């Protein structure tokens, strides 16, 4: 993984000093909250429902044991002993004090971490495939491109006061594990005539007006990647709407211009921008890419897994994915235990995962947009020991991609934007479907819950989605079916009138019962839904 050189370290250190100075000026009253707000947001510090919330960046979801330990340390020293992993591969702390923020950022900088641009109307964390570098199906590791974009976007002087936030995802496989089509820019590294290039999808997003990003350019030469991105951003910065925050994302601009006109404007700008020489030479890409080389995995590691322990076998079948190198595997750690809070991990759990990474995964971990953790490079021979350690720490729930592997935003329990609580609903659903055999029978079923229309829980992209709303002062929940954030991308459709907290759980059970009665061999829930349509499900829900 990427390691800072002296330049990278200088930049985060300067940012720490800058923010320390800004905090000092705020506390001394030299700047107002209104002036301070965009500055603290560009360092990931929100004023949230209970306290300040800090969102720490985990660039494209990749980190090592030392960094993971620092995240645990921050939780213990400055917060309430836990962190929350987010749908953008970052981590959030909910109980931060402003007066501690400079020290926290300094601690992070000491391990090559930061909270730069994790909020604000700027380019946010570049997200990527959580199995990058390990999955057999990838064309190449997308993360060097993500790192190149991270540096290019950091402290970008022209694009720090955009109409709205800007999210970029980079993948390099046909299977989309990063919800790329639902980003402002989704980049897929592709191959044409033996040459790699970048397909650019621009104008995706969720929120109030969900949209799937249209293909703007099918093949951008990789030498032009940054110039082309710069052109996309410049057109947005100049012409994105600034009159209404609910219409300020690039998806609205592209929707209103039309993809063809947006493309034309980008091409025109690109022709100009390309002449500016902002694209780094191949040597810079090679320098970065070399740091993402496959770690020295054991050449003749055994492919055998002793499945004698039945619980271990269940976990292997559900949570362990194939690795491109024989004898190895990708371990998926669920942060969705029964009765837990989706995406939360205690400092002790975070430390444990750091230990396991160092010991068994060549010191590397990933955060997924489904709020889980990955150990990307483990030997199959070590799986049992890893599972035992996870199991002892309540980190071995074998529910990857099953109905209880719920993506849930923090909701009204934590977020001042929310209209309804999401976590209790997630917990009730998980409880209703607690039987592991029942979950496995239902199979892949991606359930996503948002506590408000901002859709941080990605409910539009859930096979089953739930949206919390405020109905005359009471929490109410709308049900959506048929969304997907994968390569079969689609937006969910509302079933009908909403439900209260218990009602939504019952409704979901009626939906899953209907699925079981309708499905044909091998169909996932979402496949059955797409085949039979909404009508049978609507009938089952509402009678």
């Amino acid at each position, binding site marked *: 993984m990427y390691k800072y050189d002296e*330049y990278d370290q*200088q930049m985060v250190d300067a940012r720490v000093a*800058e923010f320390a100075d800004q905090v000092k000026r705020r506390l001394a009253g030299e700047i107002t909250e209104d*002036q301070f707000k965009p500055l603290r947001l560009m360092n990931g510090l929100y004023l949230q429902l209970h306290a300040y919330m800090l969102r720490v960046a985990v660039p494209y979801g990749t980190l090592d044991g030392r960094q993971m330990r620092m995240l645990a340390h921050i939780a213990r020293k400055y917060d309430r002993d836990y962190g929350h992993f987010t749908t953008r591969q970052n981590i959030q702390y909910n109980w931060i004090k402003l007066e501690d923020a400079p020290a926290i950022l300094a601690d992070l900088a000491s391990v090559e971490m930061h909270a730069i641009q994790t909020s604000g109307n700027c380019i946010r964390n570049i997200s990527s495939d959580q199995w990058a570098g390990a999955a057999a199906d990838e064309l190449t590791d997308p993360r060097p491109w993500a790192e190149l974009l991270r540096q*290019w976007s950091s402290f970008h002087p022209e694009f720090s006061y955009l109409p709205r936030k800007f999210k970029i995802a980079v993948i390099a496989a046909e299977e989309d594990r990063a919800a790329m089509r639902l980003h402002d820019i989704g980049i897929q590294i592709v191959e044409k005539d033996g040459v790699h290039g970048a397909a650019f999808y621009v104008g995706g997003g969720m929120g109030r007006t969900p949209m799937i990003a249209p293909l703007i350019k099918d093949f951008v030469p990789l030498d032009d990647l940054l110039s082309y991105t710069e052109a996309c951003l410049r057109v947005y*910065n100049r012409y994105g709407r*600034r009159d209404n925050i609910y219409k300020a994302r690039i998806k609205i601009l592209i929707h209103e211009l039309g993809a063809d006109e947006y493309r034309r404007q980008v091409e025109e700008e690109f022709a100009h921008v390309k002449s500016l020489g902002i694209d780094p030479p191949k040597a810079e890409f090679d320098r970065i890419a070399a740091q993402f080389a496959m770690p020295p995995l054991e050449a003749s590691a055994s492919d055998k897994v002793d499945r004698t322990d039945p619980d271990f076998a269940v976990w292997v079948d559900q949570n362990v994915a194939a690795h491109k190198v024989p004898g190895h595997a990708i371990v998926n750690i669920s942060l969705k235990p029964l009765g837990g809070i989706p995406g939360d991990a205690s400092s002790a759990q975070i430390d444990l995962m750091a230990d396991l990474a160092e010991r068994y995964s060549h010191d590397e971990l990933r955060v997924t947009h489904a709020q889980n953790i990955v150990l990307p490079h483990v030997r199959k021979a070590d799986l049992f020991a890893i599972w035992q350690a996870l199991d002892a720490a309540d980190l071995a729930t074998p529910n990857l991609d099953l109905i209880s592997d719920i993506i849930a935003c923090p909701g009204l329990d934590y977020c001042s934007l929310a209209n309804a609580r999401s976590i209790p609903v997630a917990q009730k659903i998980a409880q209703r479907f607690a039987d592991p055999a029942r979950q496995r029978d239902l199979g892949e079923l991606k359930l996503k819950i948002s506590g408000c229309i901002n859709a941080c829980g990605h409910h539009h992209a859930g096979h089953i989605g739930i949206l919390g709303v405020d109905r005359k002062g009471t929490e109410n929940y709308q049900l959506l079916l048929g969304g997907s954030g994968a390569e079969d991308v689609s937006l969910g459709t509302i079933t009908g009138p909403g439900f209260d907290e218990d009602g939504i759980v019952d409704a979901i059970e009626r939906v899953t019962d209907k699925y079981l009665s309708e499905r044909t061999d091998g169909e996932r829930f979402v496949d059955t839904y797409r085949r039979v349509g909404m009508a049978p499900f609507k009938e089952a829900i509402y009678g």
Partner: protein
Amino acid sequence: MVEHLQADGEEPCVTLDAFLDQSNATAVRLESDEDARALIPFLDRLKLIEVAFPKFRDGRGYSSARILREAGYSGELRAQGDVLVDQIGYLKRCGFDSFAPEKDLNPADVEAALTRWPEHYQGAADGAVPIWKLRHG
């Protein structure tokens, strides 16, 4: 070099529309929603272009400035309006060399903002050598 105030005797800025109508103004003001490229045919005649920042959140002026510098404008480029000291660094990188903030800026804060960053990741309009170039020569 940073200048804060409009000097006595300086020609006032005309609006873009007025400038495009009339031929002999040397100072023009660009509103945040106006197209900087409209000035490109006339850059050699201009001594001052003032770019408006009606609200600090409105970042269109950053693009306007870079576009003008990229087109070869070498006169004074001034950021006017709701300009906060914490934006000075980015404004300068985009090509601004003078500032007319609505609220006075503390000169020490301005100096700190201008000297904060040892290097920069990306090329912009200030001629700074981006880090990738420092890495590879």
